[in-house]
């Protein structure tokens, strides 16, 4: 799980204005509210996750992704 956490942080970091916020992020960090990611960049983050893990995230699942941990959960579930 530590690897997955680091990989998601790396994806999010690409879209962060304040990279340090992402470097210091925890699993519980909220992607928009805590890491100050522009909400439109969540589209990029979801598409990057889909490409990296070769999964498709259902459009209706996006509202479950609030924190980094939520993103990790969605990936784990999709990978079965």
């Amino acid at each position, binding site marked *: 799980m530590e690897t997955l956490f680091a990989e998601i942080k790396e994806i999010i970091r690409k879209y962060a204005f304040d990279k340090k916020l992402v470097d210091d992020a925890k699993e519980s960090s909220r992607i*928009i*509210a805590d890491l100050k990611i*522009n*909400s*439109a*960049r*969540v*589209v*990029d983050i*979801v*598409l990057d996750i*889909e490409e990296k893990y070769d999964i498709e*995230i259902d*459009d*209706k699942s*996006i*509202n*479950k*992704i*609030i924190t980094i941990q939520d993103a990790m959960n969605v990936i784990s579930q999709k990978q079965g």
Partner: protein
Amino acid sequence: MTLCGNDIMTLHTENFRTFSRPGASRLILSDTEKKESKNTAIELIWRWTCKEAAFKILMKAGHQEAFSPSQFSVVAKIPPIFEEEKTITGSIFWENKRFFFQSDISQDYIYTLAFNCPKEKATKYSSIIYNETSINLDILYSLTGRNYLAIQKTSRNIPYLSAISGEILNYDVSISNDEEFTAITIIPGL
């Protein structure tokens, strides 16, 4: 009680890159919109501003989940032709709720302001769009006629207006930033 939500998105490279990506429309459009959309980046950006504006109203009404754009459907009064339109009006639907919007298109951005009632029935409001990322006392004075105010946010990221003394004021507030632009709408006296 009138509630507002606004959203501004610049028409610069980064947003066009995001909204041109394969898969973006799948994440953003509702099933109905998928049938009628031309899937251009500018259309997706416009629909996104409408949906995010409506989502901000939902949040103020206690909605707890994260933004899920495909759950919202945007219906313009007249289907927009983006090369020509400067203003688009219409409705945004989410479950059994309806919101009313006006989008303004400039060379630099698309700005949408939505209300939970028709605009003509909305409480008188003040809005400003300006070319800076900071919010200063002069801007809040121009919107409210009051000095020494600040905008703060709740733990759920909902903005509110307070006096420097800490007193929370009875205004509905919406803020949006994208790149160098900031948009603020304030409705007094909830």
